[in-house]
């Protein structure tokens, strides 16, 4: 355990929503400060919100903290407070040692100057003396793999070269605290690997690292601990895996919300539309022949019998469908099809297919229930569609797309990080043997 590098206590920062308001409040604050009045920094005025709200954490040297959160959750603002750009409106943060920030690689590069001249500028920005930069120059040139290009004006650099040089200066200056905002996803694969190696080496030699990233892979490989931020608050503070889980769940919820908003317009009527187009159906409208209508579709937790929009990983559930039949239907088939965010029709539930034929159904109101005992969705967002068909008729008697949406949450037991696009989980056991005994 190294010595303490960062301690943040109750850090908060507020912003105004509009520029105009920001100017008004700004002038107000300025006047207050100049008059030496105590300022009301710690309360919100109309139109203001907490961009960072009461964040606490401690980081020791040699440790890495990963910060995750969807866009606008306050990550960058927090990093800027740590870097001394914004003064907190509440709370305090203490940072020990020289701080290097890679808040966007290549800050302060002057386009007209050569790479070498820019290294001097950038190095001095990171708190090095001219002599120290001179001593590091060969190393920086070698690491960035720029070779003779180092004497070319940086305006002629490709974006990759730009970033490589910026990273080389920041990483090789060996700061005591390194703040990074989404900079690992740059350069080609070889360079990325080199960056990871360099970062891990910095960690071993005692640099405390704060890494903001949307990439669970980067966070998982570099960080020991994490913060998950939502609306400025640190919702989860703890192990990296917990943070990645929280981030993934939040993303699923946002995906559901976005999809819901998108199809709200068409779906709000709720009435059956006779002979509607497939486009209307895709927007969430109920379409059909008028023989049958589903009035409600819900996912119900098996345990509590309550309608839910989130399920745990592998949690059993019921599908409940309320159906009003207007005309008798022979060989009635109820079919539920689920989509994932990136794939259509990943699973179907069809009573005929699964050996439960229903036969003829007379007019009236019915409630159908499908008991799903061993679902194996991977964590993510899923959308349900329901259809009524008859074996004897080749068309849908009724179709209701996007009738329900659920989020399957990340499990505590597994850390399902390998591929966000994967949708199905297979239980499996793993073993291996070595084939040749010696060489």
């Amino acid at each position, binding site marked *: 355990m190294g010595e303490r590098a960062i301690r943040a206590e109750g850090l908060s920062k507020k912003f105004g929503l509009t520029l105009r308001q920001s100017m008004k409040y700004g002038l107000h604050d300025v006047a207050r400060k100049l008059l030496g009045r105590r300022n009301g920094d710690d309360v919100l005025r109309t139109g203001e919100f907490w961009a960072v709200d009461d964040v606490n954490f401690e980081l020791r040297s040699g440790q890495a903290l990963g910060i995750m959160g969807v866009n606008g959750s306050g990550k960058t603002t927090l990093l800027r407070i740590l870097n001394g750009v914004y003064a907190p409106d509440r709370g305090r*943060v203490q940072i020990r040692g020289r701080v290097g920030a890679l808040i966007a690689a290549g800050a302060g590069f002057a386009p007209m100057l050569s790479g070498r001249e820019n290294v001097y500028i950038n190095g001095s920005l990171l708190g090095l003396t001219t002599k120290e930069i001179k001593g590091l120059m060969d190393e920086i040139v070698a690491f960035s793999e720029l070779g003779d290009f180092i004497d070319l004006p940086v305006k002629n650099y490709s974006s990759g070269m730009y970033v490589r040089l910026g990273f080389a200066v920041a990483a090789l200056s060996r700061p005591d605290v390194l703040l990074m905002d989404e900079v690992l996803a740059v350069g080609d694969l070889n360079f990325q690997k080199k960056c990871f190696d360099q970062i891990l080496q910095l960690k071993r030699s005692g640099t405390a690292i704060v890494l903001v990233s949307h990439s669970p892979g980067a966070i998982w490989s570099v960080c020991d601990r994490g913060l998950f931020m939502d609306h400025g608050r640190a919702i989860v503070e703890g192990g990296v895996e917990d943070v990645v889980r929280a981030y993934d769940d939040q993303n699923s919820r946002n995906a559901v919300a976005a999809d819901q908003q998108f199809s709200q317009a068409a779906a709000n009527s709720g009435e059956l539309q006779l002979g509607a187009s497939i486009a209307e159906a895709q927007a969430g409208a109920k379409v059909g022949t008028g023989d049958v209508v589903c009035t409600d579709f819900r996912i119900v937790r098996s345990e509590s019998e309550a309608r839910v929009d989130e399920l745990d990983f592998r949690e059993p559930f019921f599908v409940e469908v309320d159906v009003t039949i207007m005309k008798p239907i022979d060989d009635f088939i109820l079919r539920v099809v689920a989509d994932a965010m990136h794939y259509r029709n990943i699973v179907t539930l069809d009573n005929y297919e699964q050996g439960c034929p229903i036969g003829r159904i007379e007019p009236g109101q019915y409630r159908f229930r499908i008991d799903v005992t061993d679902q194996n969705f991977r964590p993510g967002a899923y959308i349900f569609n329901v259809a009524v068909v008859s074996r004897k008729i080749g068309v849908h008697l009724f179709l209701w797309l996007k009738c329900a949406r659920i989020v399957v949450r990340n499990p505590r037991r597994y850390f399902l990080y390998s591929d966000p696009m994967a949708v199905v989980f297979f239980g499996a056991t793993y073993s291996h043997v070595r084939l040749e005994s010696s060489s």
Partner: protein
Amino acid sequence: MPKMVEIVSEPTIKRVEIIRTYEAVGTAQGPLRTLQLAGGELYWSRHVLWHLFVRDFVAGFRQKLLGYLWIVLMPLTGIASFVFMEMTGILNPGSTEIPYPIFVFIGTTVWGTFVAAITTVASGLINNADLVMRTNIPKIGLAVTGLASIAYNLLINLAVLVLLMGLFGRLPSIWAIFYPLAVLPIVVLGAGVGLILSVIGAVARDLTSMLVTLINLVMYITPVVYTAQFSNPWLQLIVRWNPLTYLVDTPRALFVAGRVPSPTGFALSTSLVLFTLWGGIHAFYLIKDKVAERL
């Protein structure tokens, strides 16, 4: 193919024990404390400031046909119009004891330095917004980094001035070596005003241009391009009580004639300058935390 690079060298960077604390400050800091802070931060960031100066200086002259010659040409073209107006009789500068081109050259140089000091310091934070947002260089350092180029321009102007004197067959007074010191107060005044503007101007962007317009009007009640000896007693009084009168007149008289026209006026004006600088620094430190989020 990427080259394989072995990095074995030991870190050659000395470990410095710095502890930074950023916290919500409820009450205002004392005026002496802010001066102390400013001094400490400027010293701490001296390397950065130097490199930023070199950056601005070199970048300003690359890809330009005349390159560094610009520094010499600019002031000369600047006085051409005044000399033309004086020659044709449109402008009557009053009786000057020195050739008019020299008079107006020193006057416009000193005045230009004053306005440049205000605008560069005032726009220092906005121009370096990128660095304010991404690095932890003290903000006061970024605000004053432009002053270095002003000093440099002043030196070049001095060389041009000596040449100009030579053209008129005159030698500068021996006291001319104190010329830079005599110009210093007006630069410091500009910096002090600029510091206040840099923080307030970042919140309300048009403030600086408003003030510069106003300052340009003040030039007409200051002996810059003419002696400002008005017959109207009220105007006379204003010119006498205008501290800028002494800040412009003193360097010129010192350089050419080796005398200070009004030592009392210069001393009083200089005290006012120091007071303004102190006020500027104090205001800057009180407000600077409110600036970053509005850049």
